[in-house]
């Protein structure tokens, strides 16, 4: 931890200081620090900087905060740590560096978790995303019995084998910050690190939104519109993918990213429909499959783009 920081910027006092400390740490490791992707998504992995950039031969090191929307996890602001909107901090390094575990442990030190007094463990957790057609092996990282991060070596993303393999780290920011700030309720987190009247809590920023979106997600969200949006996003994705091939040889693709946006869209719309309880168990599987097909087609297109590594 940087001792020169003013008190209100220290990661154990301030949620924003906490995020900045992580960003700074990973910037120093050579990552590009991106800003959140401007679309609703269920996890930081959906960000094209992870999903698509994990594919192809080109090196890629990036870190970013991504708001994660999980409509079903809303609790109207009444649960101390469950929310339909929270932050993930995502790191992706391709190829995975040989010292990625050490870098991860150093990043914990940077946010105030000292490995001499804490019990830090790597516990088996194989990661799989059925909607992304992705899987990898790794761990959940434990600090004193609490899961604080996911650590994954991607083996396949969007149905494409990763070559080389990328290492992915996902930090649950609120949970970690609660731990280092020593609070039991997420809304009590000190957001800006100030005291007294100047203090802004996580609740000040997000509680209203949690209440409103919980009502929206569970009770009001317009299902007719959402069903329609799903179909439209699916069709658009396919259309852009088809139109994106440079020529009939289908060797170069020019529009993987706009098509992938529609895949992200379809996935989030599905999550909303799921929260509304209008998708039956059997249909659920087929929706997941439909999103996966889109993701795979986007992955296939991406590896035919210039950034995706096509010659």
């Amino acid at each position, binding site marked *: 931890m940087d001792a020169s920081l003013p008190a209100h910027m220290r990661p154990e006092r301030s949620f924003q200081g906490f995020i900045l400390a992580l960003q700074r740490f990973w910037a120093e490791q050579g990552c590009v620090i991106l800003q959140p992707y401007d679309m609703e998504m269920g996890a930081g992995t959906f960000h094209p900087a992870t999903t698509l950039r994990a594919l192809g031969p080109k090196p890629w090191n990036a870190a970013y905060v991504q708001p994660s929307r999980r409509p079903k996890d809303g609790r109207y602001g009444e649960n101390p740590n469950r929310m339909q909107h929270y932050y993930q901090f995502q790191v992706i390094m391709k190829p995975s560096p040989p010292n990625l575990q050490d870098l991860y442990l150093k990043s914990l030190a940077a946010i105030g978790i000292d490995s001499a007094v804490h019990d830090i463990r790597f516990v088996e957790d194989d990661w799989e995303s059925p909607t992304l057609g992705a899987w990898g092996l790794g761990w959940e990282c434990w600090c004193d019995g609490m899961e604080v991060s996911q650590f994954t070596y991607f083996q396949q993303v969007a149905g494409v084998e990763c070559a080389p393999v990328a290492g992915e780290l996902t930090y649950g920011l609120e949970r970690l910050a609660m731990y280092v700030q020593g609070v039991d309720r997420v809304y009590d987190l000190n957001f800006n690190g100030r005291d007294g009247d100047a203090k802004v809590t996580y609740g000040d920023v997000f509680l209203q939104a949690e209440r409103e979106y919980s009502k929206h997600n569970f009770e009001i969200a317009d299902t007719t519109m959402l069903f329609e949006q799903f179909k439209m996003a699916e069709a658009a994705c396919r259309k852009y993918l088809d139109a994106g091939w440079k020529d009939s040889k289908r060797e170069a693709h020019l529009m993987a990213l706009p098509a992938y946006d529609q895949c992200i869209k379809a996935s989030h719309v599905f999550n909303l429909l799921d929260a509304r309880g209008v998708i039956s*168990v059997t249909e659920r599987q087929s929706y997941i499959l439909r999103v996966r097909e889109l993701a795979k087609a986007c992955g296939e297109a991406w590896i035919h783009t210039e950034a995706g590594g096509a010659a």
Partner: protein
Amino acid sequence: MPDLLLELFSEEIPARMQAKAADDLRRMVTDKLVAEGLVYEGAKAFSTPRRLALTVHGIPARQPDLKTERRGPKMGAPDAAVQGFLKATGLTSLDEAKIQRDPKGDFYIALIEKPGRDAIDVLAEILPVIIRTFPWPKSMRWGARSGKPGSLSWVRPLHAITATFGPETEEPDIVKFSVDGIETGQTTYGHRFMAPAPISVRRFEDYEAKLKAAKVILDPQARKDIIFADAKELTFAQGFELVEDQVLLDEVSGLVEWPVVMMGSFEPEYLSIPEEVIRATIRNNQKCFVVRDAKTGKLTNKFVLTANIEATDGGKTIVAGNERVIRPRLSDAKFFYEADLKTRLEDRLPKFEQIVFHEKLGTQAARIKRIERLAAEIAPMVGADVAKATRAAHLAKADLLTEVVGEFPEVQGLMGKYYALAQGEDASVAAACEEHYKPQGPADRVPTDPVSVAVALADKIDTLVGFWAIDEKPTGSKDPYALRRAALGVIRLLVENGVRLNLTKLFDRHYDTVLESIAERLRSAGRTFGVGMGSLDLLSFFADRLKVQLREQGARHDLVDAVFALGGQDDLLMIVRRVEALGKFLETDDGKNLLAGIKRASNILGIEEKKDKRSFDGAPDAALYGLDEEKALAKAIGEVKAEASAAVAKEDFAAAMSAMAKLRPPVDAFFDKVRVNDDDAKVRENRLKLLNEIRSATRAVADFSKIQD
């Protein structure tokens, strides 16, 4: 003789894979050594979260020289054959070959000597192959090399390989090889946090000792012993008792290299949650042990955690951290439990209409209806109250929809019992909610309460008949719906409770119920299929299961075939009793000799039937008996048949076997004195018919031809 030390140092290996991996490593290396003619004295393998290690001691320094002889062409053979022989054996001329004489002529013999190689060279050749082909249940690629084809797959990234070879008294050599860019050496690393510096090791003894100094206990058993002893001592010192948990101990010992056991506590108010739920919460999520009060035997508000570090603050932060994690977990569990209690089990059932049990077998709701109906049908046969069995079947699955079971699937059934008792259900009904899943495996207890037995049978038979109806039977090693286990459960429920039941009828009737229940589903799926094929096939599946069961108990499974071959056998209890009586009988001299006699009769009949291309059915003609032994045998057959059949009718199989025993003297005497293949064709035919009668008489108890000698 020299020893091998091998260590594969990697990122954290999943706990559940470590023991098997260590064993695989030992087996693969030693098998290969032996195959290479290097017979070793001993081998032992170890694992920690970050390493697999193997020591093999007493390996010969060199392979023995191999001398083989190879026979070549005859003297004077064409030149092409001679050249081929020279080429294949490496001889420069025939002068180097020996000549050997045998009855077919004089042959050239080449003596080929293959000198043994140094063991270290053999090791350098076999070890990389073993590493590349190591059977991890799941493995992965990593790093820059994963961009190219053929890169190494390992369970998690592999960082270093230590491989040394040498005798005790000398500095060992490094077994030189490299795998995917990792060169072997003699450098390993200590504990990730307490002693991360590189350590140079020579051989197993200093390796293990240096690791220990670097805060790594190499032997998983030693780690287990430490955790177990410390946990017991820690709890005992405070008047508590550790709730022992071997599976958890195995797992925890695979999560640490340097176990440090500590105790934490939670708020006593959470003790109002059922103990099993507290235990599941703490065990599954936190990998901690629970603790009971030594006096009352009840859980206390303590838990035992195993850290992987001697923290500089004495562990205060770690204990506090774990307590902070456990608290909200228990708070959730308590909330779930209390919320569950607010809804009656039956009120949850409508939701099952939406939950598909199996695509072709319909919803859980449909399945519950079938089980209710079947349980009511079975109840009188097992002495259960029909109303209670129906009620129990109605409620038994409802806990699947509770929050607690959603969170901890392993307490399914058990929570059903708690919730049933809490809403004032009859004790048998509540017990059946838990016990109807039993027995889950060969070691599991079989319920005895008649209501539980009825529902447990109904649950399993519905599963079996259902999957048979849609033709989803187990094949080979594939049994995704655990149908073998279900059939074994039915067998144990019936036999261990002494329940008589005609399975064929029950299967047939339930088959109709299933078809009726899924008819709509199948019609809409556009499928049609034949009706009434189910029960026969299912019964033979039970026969197979019974054989497996008896074989595992060390009993003779061929006797099951001998009884099933009689046909019409579908009462498992009677089948088992008959098999037992038959087994006992066959252990007596009378039994053995009678079996031999019957087999002899069958063999003769078989040969003669083939010769004459006819069978010898039908009653023999008494007028054609010429010898006393014939008459005596005919008389004995008549008596024994009647006696054995009467005993079987009374289900007294021991008596039936005793009756059979009476056949032995006349059968023996017959074969002793009577020549079956008489010159007179009529006498011969009659004697063969008499032999056939022996066979048919013994079918009163079993088909002896199916019994193995």
